[in-house]
């Protein structure tokens, strides 16, 4: 038995009121002499015993009445054993299968222990009950949807995979479980949450049901959650630099191990190892990578394993800062200085001086190839006449995360761009025209653009809804327009990128204008993703085979499609993407263990009113049943009894 408002029990002091009143009343009775008192004795003698009983009953009744009222105010409840509640009910189990639940304790992971608990809960359910199971690892999944085949469910939990690399999405899982319960026709609806309730669970932020659904929590946690993880890796140097690269690795967390080693693997082979130097909050280590490393990614592993091995692994992308730019020259010239892309090439050549690294490849428009495009972060179509055969290639490229910068010129055919790439472009080129009076440019981010003069332009009209104008002509028309297309970005410039229509290339602002534009467009999708997150990759084609190699070395062929949402990202570590069998640096990615999952200290169940006791192995089950209605009934009975006693006393 328990009380919802235990402080209200202080009111039990009021029970003394009728007792004190009784005693005071006895003391204060007026005295009266009466010669015929013998007759009172004679009558009272037969009545006195009864009166004493009635008085005592009145006293007890009044005391009980007050006590019952106080107890009602204290919201009492009792835990009723399941045998008393053998009625069918709908049970939704929110099962935490996040990474922290993979912690190993006495040879078993917390997931395996939680699965045993859940199976026990299901075993105790009355026949005809309905069970749903929602897994709260990110992303939450409905694992069992309103099933009544309890024996099957028990078996399923027995075969549960005890390890996970998922983040936590408890709140979404709770929402899904509540929706399942609300779909049930059974009146008794219960929500059981089985979790370690660590920091990463964030259960206290969830929207817990308050009416119509009883909620209970079962905490499963490791008693000694010492755990270390690779917290961060800083890549120092360039992949192709002469003096090689260095990885500075930070380790966080506590460990009972006196000595730990950090091992580095490339293509599955251990290439280096270093001892972890202890620091105040963990440790640190450095690893050298010799010049000419051929792989775009490496894997680090902390050895030996602790209670949570999954966060001891980390994939590292090498050279991810280099932007690969493909310049497609639509107006080639034998003299490189007179090419359409000459000024941009010059700018990219001086870029390392300002700390940025560009890998530049220049092709004539007629030499454009699929492999060249896929290797690039940004493709610049400089005054290029659009060929329809490029369309599927460019669509797949941009949709898969590539970026496109189209610059105007006399070779740009607005009609072809408008009809072929209309969906892809942020606007539509209109007829080219030469201005009688030069126009200036206006940009909020680069005010110096105002120094440039523009004599000719291919105006852009009908901008898409999501288009952003980054620069305008002095007459207000858009000079530079950008928008996102699927995972990629597309920008259009209304004038040339050489000196044919404008003196912009001669202006100092041209350098930051080009670099900012390219870096902005090259802002790739995240290279580091959470476990099981979808990674957008280009699909295979007839001429190009795309494969993904997982951290464990498994090779997965991607299906033929413009783009593929690759979801087999459950392993922690580095994923390589092969284009026709060759490692492509642009699409390599790593899956990191969710950092919040490494904190294994349980915070306990959230401070939510728990309505029923879940079944624990070896213990009988029960629910909290409010006793206030029964007590109110008792109060009414006591009131009537008190009135009746008073009548009896008066007779």
């Amino acid at each position, binding site marked *: 038995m328990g009380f919802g408002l235990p402080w209200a029990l202080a009111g039990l002091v009021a029970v003394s009121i009728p007792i004190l009143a009784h005693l005071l009343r006895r003391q204060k009775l007026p005295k009266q002499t*009466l010669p015929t008192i013998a007759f009172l004795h004679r009558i009272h003698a037969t009545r006195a015993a009864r009166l004493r009983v009635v008085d005592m009953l009145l006293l007890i009744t009044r005391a009980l009445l007050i006590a019952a009222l106080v107890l009602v105010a204290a919201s009492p409840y009792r835990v009723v054993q399941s045998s008393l509640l053998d009625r069918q009910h709908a049970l939704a189990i929110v099962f935490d299968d996040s990474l922290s639940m993979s912690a190993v304790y006495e040879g078993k992971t917390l997931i395996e222990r939680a699965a045993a608990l859940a199976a026990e809960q299901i075993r105790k359910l009355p026949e005809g009950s309905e069970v749903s199971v929602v897994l709260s690892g990110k992303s939450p999944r409905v694992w069992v949807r309103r099933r009544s085949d309890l024996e099957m469910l028990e078996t399923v939990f027995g075969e549960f995979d005890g390890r996970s690399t998922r983040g936590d999405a408890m709140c979404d899982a709770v929402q899904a479980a509540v929706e399942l319960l609300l779909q049930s026709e059974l009146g008794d609806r219960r929500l059981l949450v089985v979790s370690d309730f660590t920091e990463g669970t964030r259960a206290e932020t969830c929207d817990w049901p308050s009416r119509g659904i009883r909620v209970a929590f079962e905490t499963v946690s490791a008693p000694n959650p010492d755990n270390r993880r690779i917290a961060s890796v800083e890549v120092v140097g360039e992949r192709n630099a002469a003096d090689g690269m260095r990885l500075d690795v930070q380790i966080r967390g506590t460990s009972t191990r006196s000595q730990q080693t950090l091992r580095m693997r490339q293509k599955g082979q251990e290439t280096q190892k270093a001892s972890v130097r202890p620091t105040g909050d963990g440790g640190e280590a450095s690893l050298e990578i010799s010049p000419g490393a051929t792989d775009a990614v490496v894997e680090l592993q902390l050895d030996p394993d602790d209670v949570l091995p999954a966060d001891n692994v980390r994939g590292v992308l090498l050279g991810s800062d280099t932007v690969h730019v493909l310049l497609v020259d639509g107006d080639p010239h034998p003299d490189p200085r007179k090419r359409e892309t000459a000024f941009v090439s010059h700018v990219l050549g001086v870029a390392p001086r300002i700390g940025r690294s560009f890998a530049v490849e220049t092709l004539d428009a007629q030499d454009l190839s699929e492999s060249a495009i896929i290797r690039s972060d940004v493709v610049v179509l400089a005054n290029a006449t659009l060929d329809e055969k490029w369309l599927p290639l460019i669509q797949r490229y941009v949709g898969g995360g590539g970026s496109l910068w189209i610059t105007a010129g006399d070779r740009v055919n607005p009609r072809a761009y408008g009809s072929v790439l209309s969906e892809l472009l942020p606007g539509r080129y209109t007829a080219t025209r030469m201005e009688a009076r030069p126009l200036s440019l206006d940009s909020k981010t680069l005010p110096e653009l105002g120094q440039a003069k523009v004599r000719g332009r291919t105006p852009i009209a009908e901008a898409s809804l999501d288009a952003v104008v980054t620069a305008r002509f002095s007459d207000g028309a858009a000079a530079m327009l950008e928008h996102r297309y699927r995972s990629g970005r597309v920008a259009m410039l209304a004038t040339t990128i050489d000196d044919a229509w404008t003196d912009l290339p001669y202006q100092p602002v041209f350098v930051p204008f080009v670099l900012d534009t390219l870096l902005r467009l090259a802002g790739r999708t995240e290279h580091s993703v959470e476990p099981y997150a979808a990674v957008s990759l280009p699909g295979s084609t007839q001429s190009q085979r795309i494969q993904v190699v997982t951290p464990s070395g498994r090779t997965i062929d991607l299906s033929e499609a413009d783009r593929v949402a690759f979801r087999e990202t459950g392993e922690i570590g580095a994923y390589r993407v092969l284009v026709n069998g060759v490692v492509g640096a642009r699409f390599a990615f790593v899956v990191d263990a969710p950092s919040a999952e490494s904190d294994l200290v349980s915070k306990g169940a959230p401070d939510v009113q728990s309505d029923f006791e879940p079944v624990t192995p070896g213990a009988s089950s029960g629910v909290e049943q409010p006793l206030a209605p029964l007590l109110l009934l008792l109060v009414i009975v006591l009131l009537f009894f008190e009135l009746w006693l008073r009548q009896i006393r008066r007779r």
Partner: protein
Amino acid sequence: MTHVLEPELAVRLAGLTLRAKRTVDGLLAGMHRSPHRGASAIFKEHRAYRPGDDPRLIDWRAYARSDRYTIKHFEHETQLRGTLALDISPSMHWGSGEVSKIDHAATLLAAIAYLLTRQGDAVSLVTFDEEIRDQLPARSGPAHLEYLMRTLAEPSRSTGQTRLHVSLDKLIEHAGRMGLVVIASDLLDLENEALDPVARIQARGHQTIVLHVMDPAELELPYEQPMHFEGLEGESPVEVDPKGLRRRYIEAIDAFVESCQRRVVAAGARYLLVRTDTPPEHTLLQLLREG
């Protein structure tokens, strides 16, 4: 004893005559018929002679006519000997109003004494509780009346309970033979033999009047709140709610009064319930009218 006999009461009762119902023997002649047969101006009856009769009472003329010994009876007016008995037990000293039972009873007895004295009758006084406390001989005259009233006003202090059968038995010895005995008491002696002496008093030839003096509160128990009741003669106290048992109390008191009346009347005596809230003259008038 300023209130024992109010002057106003004495004037109003001056014209009334107390006639004893039965003749009493006494030495002084008066308005009362003598139970003694003998020489008198008023012939009463003849009856057959029985051995032991005074031969001087034989009517020889009647013998000559009927050849049978006949006794000639005459009525005599004789002096009445009145014995007043006042219960002075503690319970008599109680009253719910201004007048206690003993005050009321004393007033009544004083009035009777006054009347008897005016008629030239001899009056004696006895006060009692569990035994005889005060004892005044039967005398007549103003001086004795004053002495008697003073005694009524200031009777001896009572120390015991009412024990009627003991004290009334002793009263028999005091009252002598063939007189008027007036007993004023609340009769709160609940023993079965309490009123047995009344029959024995009657058997001695007395005309006995029992004035059962009760306070209205004793008869009606008019209290409304629960109270701590205490007795006056050593009874244990009791806490009761009078409202709860009033009906049964009144039934019990009525039964007690009825029982007293039945036993007194059965003994041949007169019974009169006297409420202290009734004016004493009403009681006296009732007593004299029903004479």
